[in-house]
């Protein structure tokens, strides 16, 4: 059931309808608090009945999320949130399924389920908290840790090439990918509303700061000095401009995307790409999702939102079709079908 068909709440709801009475046990200063706040705010805006929301998680700091939101919630086992959520959504497509997960839960132990839920375009909303570290097990490197990261299990620097979440999403034929930062809850809310409106798997990567084990990992993107030059906030139909003076832009060059400064080296506003998040072809979306500081600003907002058939839609069509066509309408019909004889 898509965004438009979902049953809406008969009465307006507020974020208090979703606040749970449980003590939130994340560390003070953890980015998760801001994300929780954003979720409690966006659910009333989306406007479904409060009983329609289901949060499904795996293991990790992010995965404690369901306990802190007053919805139906399921706290699963490590890496399996996407698989559990698949069953929830298929069993009842009238539910709005949200998956808080992390770079360990979905990129490592649950990597397989992550790519397959995306490939199937199952209608769920994945919120991937990327802090590039294992927090709950106290500071080991994750599949998104930068090459060379010094962590407890890589005392001399990691020798593994990190995953880029967006690249993996688009590689798995993802139809929706967006990115936000924990330090801007209002922006998270906006992006999540877009994710909810998208029929199919939506993945929102939230760059989240772990104050204890990886503090400042997103510093270059978030600090006041550099953030304007390091953040490209995408808006559909608008030019990809950034910088304090909005005088920098992204241009399609011969060998991929390029950063240009308008007025320098003959660059004009006309050279700057216009963002088309609905483009079915993922080429530019992939390049945008891979841009990394300091050579490029990081792309924020909805990078890709392509329309495609969803799993539950196709499943329901197939069930309806068989119900109309098949002579077997009940189990008694089935038991008596084919070759039988009376003794």
């Amino acid at each position, binding site marked *: 059931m898509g965004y438009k068909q979902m049953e809406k709440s008969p009465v307006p709801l507020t974020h208090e309808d979703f606040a749970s009475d449980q003590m939130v046990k994340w560390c003070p200063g953890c980015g998760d608090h801001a994300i929780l706040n954003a979720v409690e705010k966006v659910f009333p805006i989306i406007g479904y009945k409060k009983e329609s929301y289901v949060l499904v998680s795996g293991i990790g700091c992010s995965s404690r999320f369901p306990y802190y939101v007053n919805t*139906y919630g399921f706290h699963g086992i490590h890496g399996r949130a996407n698989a559990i959520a698949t069953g*929830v959504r298929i069993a009842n497509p009238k539910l709005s399924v949200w998956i808080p997960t992390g770079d360990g839960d979905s990129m490592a132990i649950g990597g397989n389920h992550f790519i397959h839920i995306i490939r199937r375009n199952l209608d769920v909303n994945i919120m991937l908290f990327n802090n590039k570290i294992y927090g709950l097990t106290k500071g080991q490197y994750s599949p998104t840790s930068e090459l060379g990261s010094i962590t407890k299990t890589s005392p001399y620097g990691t020798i593994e090439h990190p995953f880029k979440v967006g690249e993996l999403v688009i590689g798995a034929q993802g139809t929706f990918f967006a990115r936000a930062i924990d330090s801007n809850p209002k922006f998270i809310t906006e992006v999540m509303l877009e994710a909810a409106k998208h029929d199919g798997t939506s993945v929102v990567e939230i760059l989240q700061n772990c104050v204890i084990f990886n503090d400042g990992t997103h510093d270059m993107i978030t600090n006041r000095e550099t953030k304007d030059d390091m953040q490209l906030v995408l808006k559909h139909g608008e030019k990809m401009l950034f910088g304090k003076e909005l005088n920098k832009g992204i241009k399609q060059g011969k060998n991929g995307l390029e950063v240009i400064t308008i007025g320098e080296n003959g660059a004009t506003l006309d050279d700057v790409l216009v963002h088309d998040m609905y483009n079915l072809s993922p080429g530019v979306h992939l390049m945008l999702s891979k841009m990394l500081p300091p050579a490029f600003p990081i792309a924020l907002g909805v990078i890709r939102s392509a329309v495609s058939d969803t799993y539950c839609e196709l499943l329901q069509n197939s069930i309806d079709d068989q119900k109309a066509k098949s002579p077997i309408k009940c189990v008694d019909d089935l038991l008596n079908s084919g*070759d039988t004889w009376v003794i």
Partner: protein
Amino acid sequence: MATNKQIIERDSVVVKFVGDSGDGMQLSGTLFSDAAALAGNDIATFPDYPAEIRAPHNTVAGVSGFQVHIGKETRIIGDKCDVLVAMNPASLKANLKWVKIGGTIITDGDAYDDKSLEKAGYATNPLTDNSLSSYRVIAPAITTLAKETALANGLDVKSAARTKNMFCLGMVYYIFDFELETPGCLLDKRFKKKPLMADVNKKVLEAGFNFAETMEEFASRFHISNVQLEKGKYRNITGNIATAWGLLAASERSGRDLFLGSYPITPATEILIELALHKSLGAKVFQAEDEIAGICSAIGASFAGSLACTTTSGPGLSLKSEAIGLAVMTELPLVIVDVQRAGPSTGLPTKSEQSDLNMALFGRNGESPCIVMAAGSPSDCFYAAYNAAKYAMETMTPVILLTDGHTGQGSELFRIPKVADLPAINPPIAKPNDPDYQPYRRDPETLVRQWAIPGTEGLRHRIGGLEKSDGLGLVSTDPINHEKMVDYRQEKINRLAQRIPLQEVTGSVDADTLVISWGGTRGSVYTSVKEVNEAGKKVAHAHFSYIMPLPTNTAEVLSKYKNILVCELNSGQFVNYLRMTHPSFAYKQYNKIQGLPFTVQELVNAINNI
């Protein structure tokens, strides 16, 4: 000519069709067993095939077969065959040990060229070197004869040779005096889109039948004595299909949609395939990316209110262990079907064993009890699956249903029940806006918690793999609470014993000796006990379908016998479970771990040797 033939009266007869994978042995076997069933016989069948899809031609490794037991009360597929149909030297070589002395061997005389003999590992031609003198061997030029008929009826040269299986089947039909009409209809159905193939196959079948009639070697024919089956409507069914249908019936009867999350694995795949067919009944079948996603999706579906199931075999059950623990902790209904195969690891994928019992009972971290049940025969899989679903939902607990490759892929007659006559299923569904609702509030008698289904008004709650507080279901690390919850989870299962059937005993109930079986060996142990009793020795038989919990009268049953012999296809897992749960009795054990079923003969010997 037929009037001169001698008639051999028999209670039952075993026929085995063997050839290269791809020779059409499964089809021949099915056509034969269906005809036998329509003629009023009881039947049991079993396909025997290698793990490879098309192993090299004419080699012993590539032999595929189909065994059929027809007659009166055919609870097993039979130890040895009366008639072996072998399409080539390799299949003869691989199966000769399974032919009764004096039995009939029908084989294709055309297939015994030097190259095929060499590939099969024969130094000399068994048809001419007198090594088969203890058998009645019939080896006409089957390929040539079948080809002639097929070509004369308009088939191309390549397809013509492949009708040889029908020629053999025609000869077998003659031996048993079966009507040719039955396979005719079945062939029409099978080759619905190729009427020429159907027609030619029928002609070749008839040619085989007529040919047998003219042969002097067929001096005798079998006649099966009157079979007295309970009146009713019957069909043939394999254990895996019966399992699938049992789950569908439980879904319909309980009003809970069926969800299956599975990953293909031999020999359980047929359940997944069968359920995928039945979208018209609303079954939602999800072929997951792996075994773990199979069970985890099922747990999600169960949380969302479905009758959720996952099907697998041994290695898959290993992968599902952690998730089974999650279902134990969240106290959600879940049916896990394990069609056991010989292990450990990949083991013998196409061979059967009962060696996953320990894993079903104990194979998880923590104190993690599940309900464990086992199916006794192919048709019993229907009721076992139905009851597994019933008890999973009514107890809000995962149920592991153990079947095995032999039971899952074997077939037997199934008396068709009416869904309305099956026992009612009453899942404990929480009512909307219940002001007293608590996720872990329990029924005081059964200790079962309620099923509060997402989407229901006024019941929002959170559950998960962390230990929960009694009643409220909040995350709790309180030591006393943890112990209490561990006790509840076990006691809830113990109390189910009050609601399952009492343990029955058959055979000579007043005997000194009790033979115990569980799961798929029911037929062989039943038949062996019967044979021993008929020979004058008194023996009783108790077959266990419920393992965790055991029936409440288990101790009482065990206490009545001086000798207790537990027979199972593993190294003694059930007998050790009985030693643990009922330590005051002395047990003897008989075990076999060869990937093969028990033969009646070896069981009879074991019972007599007590």
